[in-house]
């Protein structure tokens, strides 16, 4: 296999595995803050137990997020060193800000959140929850800003030519607020909230079905459901805006997302279908002209299609199309689930409706899949560029690295990440089985043990 292919496989593997965890940290971070705030306001010990349990789960996802995140930071340099030289000046400020404002904040205050229950006053503990939540969100800001710059570069100029060309920053504001950064950020963050929400819903539904920790599960579910409804509506709106930005700034990505082949014709919309690249068509039900309507507000407006671009400038169409459409499908399923939950809740039967609770348990996978598919759309759709319109992915590789070295590291990653994932599931399962009651029971036996 070629160096390019191996490096891309390794990057996909490491980033996709990493991205299981940060959304959970962001979502749970907010949920914990809400729960601890309720506790601070009402002094209801139930919410104290809620906070305590979900902080333990947060600690687990954060630990694996950090471990796999260190990999990401160095992987730009190890495998994509030409790209790193090219973008270093522009990314510099974003990355520095991430380290200083996000990572330190999150990891520092997490120590208090996890280990400081008996060491600090309640208000300091609550403040730590606020800081951890902020830190998790800050890290999303800078990462999405940097990635958005790769989608829609702005605020820079190119210095040097040929091999020595690199981007240099000219306008910090324009770089941070590049055309796609804010809407993509909103989309990513609401996606992360949904990931946290569904984890809480899934575990709570499991408890309700098992008739364990009932008051705990009911309270957790209420908090998660309210946030979930807000987040899934936000997700739909931000998704729509993000797609408009893609249409405006990344035409090759948009036509791949919609698999719109004709050079110039009104765009049809396929809710789902099969891409037939050979005959340049999509097989499936279509809404004629709806793509034109979405893009230009007119049903018959011509949309510039795949045929009008040079072949070497186009991304893989099928992957982009499937990833994008599956993501939307999953999004609709999640909105429906939230809507049903709201109806059941207002009827007062939410906690007794077995079939719904049974659906919620495996539903924890839906946002995880949707988040991965969303990023697949964004990143595969950006191909063949690593920085859209400026630098091709094939030009970004490291020159000092051979394919066999990447193969070695790829094999090691596969093994270690498998181990990590098994251990993550094992520990998560253990914590869920112990439950919030388990924590207290354990506490008692340990204080007992300590006193004897």
């Amino acid at each position, binding site marked *: 296999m070629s160096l390019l292919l191996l490096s891309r496989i390794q990057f996909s593997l490491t980033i996709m595995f990493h991205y299981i965890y940060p959304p959970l940290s962001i979502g749970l971070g907010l949920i914990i803050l809400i729960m601890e705030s309720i506790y601070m306001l009402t002094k209801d010990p139930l919410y104290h137990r809620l906070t305590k349990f979900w902080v333990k789960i947060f600690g687990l996802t954060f630990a694996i997020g950090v471990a796999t*995140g260190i990999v990401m930071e160095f992987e730009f340099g190890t495998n994509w060193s030409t790209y790193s030289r090219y*973008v270093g000046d522009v990314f510099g400020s974003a990355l520095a800000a991430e*380290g*200083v404002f996000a990572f330190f904040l999150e990891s520092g205050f997490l*120590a208090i959140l996890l280990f*400081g229950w008996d060491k600090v006053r309640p208000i300091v503990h609550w403040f730590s929850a606020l800081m951890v939540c902020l830190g998790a969100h800050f890290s999303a800001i800078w990462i999405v800003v940097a990635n958005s710059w790769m989608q829609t570069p702005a605020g820079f100029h190119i210095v040097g030519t040929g091999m020595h060309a690199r981007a240099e920053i000219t306008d910090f504001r324009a770089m941070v607020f590049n055309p796609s950064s804010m809407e993509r950020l909103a989309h990513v963050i609401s996606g992360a909230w949904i990931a946290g929400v569904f984890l809480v819903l899934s575990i709570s539904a499991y408890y309700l079905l098992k008739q364990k920790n009932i008051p705990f599960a009911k309270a957790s579910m209420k908090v998660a459901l309210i946030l979930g409804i807000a987040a899934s509506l936000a997700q739909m709106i931000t998704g729509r805006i993000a797609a408009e930005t893609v249409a405006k700034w990344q035409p090759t990505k948009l036509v791949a997302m919609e698999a719109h082949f004709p050079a110039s014709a009104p765009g049809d919309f396929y809710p789902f279908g099969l891409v037939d690249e050979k005959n340049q068509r999509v097989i499936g039900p279509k809404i004629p002209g709806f793509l034109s309507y979405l893009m230009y507000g007119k049903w018959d407006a011509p949309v510039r299609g795949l045929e009008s671009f040079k072949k070497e400038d186009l991304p893989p169409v099928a992957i982009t199309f499937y990833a994008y459409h599956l993501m939307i499908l999953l999004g609709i399923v999640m909105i429906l689930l939230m809507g049903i939950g709201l109806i059941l809740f207002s009827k007062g039967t939410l906690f007794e409706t077995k079939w719904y609770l049974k659906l919620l348990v495996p539903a924890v996978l839906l946002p995880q899949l949707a988040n991965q598919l969303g990023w697949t759309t964004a990143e595969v759709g950006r191909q063949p560029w690593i920085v859209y319109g400026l630098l091709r992915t094939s030009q970004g590789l490291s020159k000092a690295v051979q394919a066999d070295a990447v193969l070695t590291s790829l094999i090691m990653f596969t093994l270690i990440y498998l181990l990590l994932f098994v*251990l993550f599931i094992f520990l998560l399962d253990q914590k869920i089985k112990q439950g919030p009651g388990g924590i207290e029971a354990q506490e008692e036996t340990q204080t007992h043990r300590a006193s004897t």
Partner: protein
Amino acid sequence: MDLHLIWFILLGILLTGYAILDGFDLGVGALHLFSKTDQERRLMLNSIGPVWDGNEVWLVTGGGAMFAAFPDVYATLASGFYLAVYLLIFCLIFRAVAIEFRSKREGAAWRQSWDIAFCISSILSAFLFGVVIGNLIWGIPLGSDKEFQGTFFGLLHPYALLTGLTVVALCMMHGSIYVVMKTEGEFHDRARGWVKNCIIFFVIMYVILTMATLLYVPHMVANFQKYPVLFFIPVANLLLIANVPREIYHKRDFMAFLSSCGAIVVLMFLLGFGIFPNLVLSNPHPEFSLNIYQDSSSLKTLQIMLVIALIGMPVVLAYTLSIYWIFRGKVKLDDHSY
């Protein structure tokens, strides 16, 4: 003072912060198997429990700052040291996993396996950091295109192995003092014995390394010949290290720890001052070395980052210190412990 120099110093501060902080927790890991009972091992783990991942953030930020301020240095080093970087990262991941999982089950075999994993990955991490430092001092083969031209095994020359062992010794000394500081009772008394042995180990390595540097790496001494006053720095280093057993003897464990922190600061200064104004020395073609003036980001980026650092770092330092303050004192096992 120009921006390039400021960022050279700031990068140095971040990496020194990392060396001091992760230095002791890697050292605790390296000493882990010397503790005997399960209780002792849990005390060792929990002495670093609330802080180890915060400590690693200094590496993440140091790496970020290098990417940001000196992209070519970051790109050359990361791709040049490819396998070494990943070996190091795998060790750090293994360590994290071992800390998290060790105490989650009761079985003796389960715990013993994770204890061994924790110890070996800690030693290997420290050793690999040392190897990287050794190569920065010795110089690595670079081409005119700033790209590394050597091989992985070429990095493992005797001088680099020597710095690797010295860093392991330094971490063990630093970590042993930390254990003394955080424990009490019979275990605490035994840990005092470790400090003595670790100091002997470190001093032997340090003397050999210094002689090897003076004999075989003349370019590291060049800057000191320009500023002879600075010869007091290596002397200060010896005094700081000599002070450790004195403070331990007088049972001022915290002062001993500060002394050891001071020694690390001085060692990092020696490293930075020795290679200045280069960041990566090219050997055998010194004209291809990467230096802080030609291989940095633009002045504008350095300026924006400086603003960010000036706003952020005092806050970071303030809460890092308060967190260490909150978790001060002897470590006790409770329900939140590993």
